[in-house]
């Protein structure tokens, strides 16, 4: 599955943003070109892929965002756009004009929403988001990043109902960027996070909102009862890491945002998605041979070995090495040296 960055520009500053280093490392107006987008579409089509996600920065800032979405729909992709919803009035007008005829099954906006109390935004930003939801609510599912243990989800259920949004909630855990300080969830906090998340079960049930877990949740922090509830509600839950990969506007491909500097390659070096998957699978196994997961118990855990659980996010695993002496395999050492903190 491919995540395509339309731009590295963003018009919001989230405290947990793990894309900051990638954004700041690239030029301000780093926009993907039409030619590259067509190349990516062809590449994915040739590999038999049907799904594409558009990211950023903030993808709706790209002047051709609407055209890209229409183009990818024309190419018979199911398109997901990860947005903060803070579209300008003009941009929202474009979206309204051209996208409101698209079947909701084919197009999804995953709107990353912040808690208005814990992460307050300006009035203008809030108004924009609400206007976005009022126009494109039916195409939109909510997304939320957990970056502090005392998070709440109540405001999300309210918005879902208020704007007729899709009854799905994408839940992510703020991951560390190896070597970078920043808001992220420590592995020791994970159990608490899971408990708190599952405590919202009555609302999930009542409002029939399906929780979708993004990468990095370890299966061992869920009780069997909780896993049963999740499965009954939404079918198989995925606790692995990957297999999506990110493609930046300059056609770099990397494992995910937090790992954007680890074994980064160009898309032009690959012939198919299978090759990319193999490349990153190899990286995963390299790292897993060093440390199985974010907990010591991951080493020997049946679910980790069977591939059911990823042992937490790979970035979290890698983060364990960043304060370490040079003791890992040469390949890993080479990459880690970019993130190593000074002695």
């Amino acid at each position, binding site marked *: 599955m491919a995540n395509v960055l339309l731009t590295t520009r963003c018009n919001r500053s989230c405290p947990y943003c793990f894309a900051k280093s990638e954004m700041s490392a690239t030029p301000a107006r780093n926009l993907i070109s039409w030619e590259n987008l067509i190349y990516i579409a062809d590449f994915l089509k040739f590999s038999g892929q049907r799904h594409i996600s558009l990211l950023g920065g903030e993808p709706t800032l790209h002047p051709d965002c609407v055209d890209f979405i229409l183009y990818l729909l024309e190419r018979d992709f199911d398109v997901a756009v990860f947005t903060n919803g803070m579209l300008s009035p003009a941009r929202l007008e474009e979206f309204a004009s051209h996208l409101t005829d698209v079947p909701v099954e084919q197009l999804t906006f995953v709107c990353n929403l912040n808690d208005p109390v814990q992460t307050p935004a300006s009035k203008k930003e809030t108004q924009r988001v609400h206007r976005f939801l009022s126009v494109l609510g039916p195409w939109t599912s909510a997304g939320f990043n957990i970056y502090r243990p005392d998070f709440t989800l109540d405001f999300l259920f309210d918005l879902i109902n208020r704007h007729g949004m899709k009854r799905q909630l994408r839940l992510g855990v703020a991951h560390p960027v190896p070597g970078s300080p920043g808001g992220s969830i420590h592995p020791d906090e994970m159990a608490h996070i899971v408990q708190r998340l599952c405590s919202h079960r009555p609302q999930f049930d009542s409002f029939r909102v399906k929780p979708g877990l993004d990468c990095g949740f370890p299966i061992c922090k869920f009780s069997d009862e909780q896993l049963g509830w999740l499965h009954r509600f939404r079918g198989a839950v995925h606790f692995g890491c990957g297999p999506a990969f990110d493609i930046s506007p300059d056609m770099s491909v990397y494992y995910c945002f937090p790992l954007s500097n680890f074994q980064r390659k160009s898309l032009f070096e690959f012939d198919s998605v299978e090759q990319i998957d193999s490349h990153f699978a190899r990286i995963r196994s390299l790292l897993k041979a060093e440390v199985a997961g974010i907990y*010591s118990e991951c080493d*020997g855990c049946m679910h980790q070995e069977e591939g059911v659980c990823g042992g937490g996010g790979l970035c979290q695993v890698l983060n364990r090495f960043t304060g370490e002496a040079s003791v890992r395999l040469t390949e890993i050492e080479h990459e880690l040296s970019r993130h190593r903190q000074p*002695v």
Partner: protein
Amino acid sequence: MATVIFKPTEACNARCIYCDVVHKKPRSPATMPLRTLELFFERVNEFLAEKPLEHMEIVWHGGEPLLLGRDYFMKAIHFQRTHCAGTSDRIHHNIQSNLTLFSKEYADIFRSLGVRSLGTSYDPMPGVRGLGSKRDTNAYNRKFLDAIALAEEEGFNWGLIYVVTKLSLPRPLEIFHFLSNLSRKGAFTFNPVLLYGNDERKIGHLRITPEEYASFLGEIFPVWWRDREYFCQIDPFHTLTQTLLDDRRALMCADSGTCARSHLNVSSDGGISQCGRAADWGLLDYGSIFDKSFSRVFADPQKELLLERNTILPQTDCSGCRFWDICHGGCPLDSWSATGSFFHKSEWCLAKKSFIEKYFEPTVGAAAGATEHLQTQQPCAPVDKHSDTELLRSAEHSDTASLHDARHPDTACLQGAKQSDTVRPHGAKHSDTARPHVPDHRESVDYTWINPIGGLGDTLMISGVLKLVSEKDPSRKFNLVARTKYGPLLEGHPAIERIGHPRPGARFLSTNYWDEEDYGRPGSRAFQLLARMFGLEPPIEERLYVPGEFSVDPVLLRAIPWKRRNILFCQGSDSPRKQMPIEKWEKLAGLPAGRKIGIVQAGNRNDVYIRGTYSLLGLTSPRHLISMLDRFDAVVTGDNFIMHAAHLRGVPAVVLWGPTDHRVYGYSGHIHHQAEIKCGQPGGCIGPGAGDVYRTRCPEGVAHCMNTFDPEIIFNSIADLLKR
């Protein structure tokens, strides 16, 4: 094949600046009379009748042969039909013409003569070639271009000679592309301009040196080489490539050293000489067709003289020259022109040598050496035959094991259920270890970090060595670098303070004993080497150790259909090279039939199942497997973790060895079967410096050493163990 340069006329409608004929300025250009023409064909027939296996090539030359006119050629066809009825199938006509007079009529004539390809020359430069006394280049060029277009329409191939002069030197690639663009069927040859005697005064400004000629070719050659499959034949590149790389000799007359045996020139007066130049210079005159047959001419003593060059030159001018075989001292007439003798090399040898050494070899990649050596080289694959992807794949890193560049005892059994003895309290903040948080004062102790490298079998040896260290000096402790698989086996070890992530600046001890100097020496054992690395003085008792208590999954234990005697098979290994083929295992599993012996297989979930055994593949962690071992009466295994674990638990074992040596790793008390190694690696293919092959299959196929075992013999060993 005998080649006759046949010049029935010296008349020419062009005035090419470097042409011999032009400079000779014959007052009345002679044309061969018809009677002489007829006699010529009689001689041809005579020659071919005398030599039933011989063929003859007649190259119509001149002057300009098309000035002879249609009727003349019709006569020639008539004479051939009349006098060569029985030999005409061995007569091959070719033509060398400026083509400015070519027409559909001539196309028909040439077809009747069996000509398929037209030879010509061309140079578009103003003032070099042209028609009439004023040397009208434009008119010449137009007619020439029309002619080759017509020739192609009429189905002829054509090849042109381009004479390289001083005027050409500044623009080699332009000329190359110009000639390539001319049309689709045109091949061409670059020849240097040859100037002699009086020519020097008139056209000395066209002269080029051998080095200049070589440089001219050298500019073009890399371009041709890169895309050679997309060009028609371009010489001398094509010929040299065939001769030097493809082992197909295709030398021109001047380089063959055997022109005396094959070539003749017949002039318009019927005179026979060695070649056109020889005729012009009054050299090597063999008489005429009026009084001599071609057979007699080929036997002329003067030809022997020419052939003597092949004996003399290698001892003189060409002594030690590695290009002799493809040059033979060049054209004898060049030698005569320069020295008055046939027995010197041509000055143009230098051009060939210079071109090959400076341009051909560096471009093609063939090493310097004799022709035979060049002929054994494979030609370089053209760059465009490789996709980008392929090139990138060849540069990818090898896998984990190869990076270690080490021997890895395998990790036969991987984890099954979660380990109950390492439960982490939820909710509390801990450092990345299974042990309780280490107080600060202990963190400040500067223990050496063990960097564990190798498989689980190595881990057991390390554990045993560390136990001995601890017994000798309980205060001596180490930290252990956290790495997957090692922690569960080593947690709680008395010699290990903590398992975690060392800070920069920490002291390390890596356990790659295979890099020790004594590794591989007779009598040198892995355990002893490890012990010495940890400061123990060999020889020491080889005791293995695993901390903590052993516990077995009761569900598994209950499920196994225990029999009176029970054997554990372990087929797997990290390295395919240490695995006996599955067919042999299955045969072995069938041997105890009817003897109340149960066979259980343990190992990785990805190991191949041995039919006839009770499978526990992928269901046991290393600790569980160690725990379970004492329930078995014997173990049959390769060089893997189980082998070490059996020693640890005191369980008898039959161990199968191939690329690794039981004397280095095996334990006394086990029965060792060491396969005879018949491949080119008597010491075994696995070892230091061979990390890249560890995870690969043996290339010997059925000749793999692990395939030489006899299951019956192995079973006999098992039976012996069971009797003990």
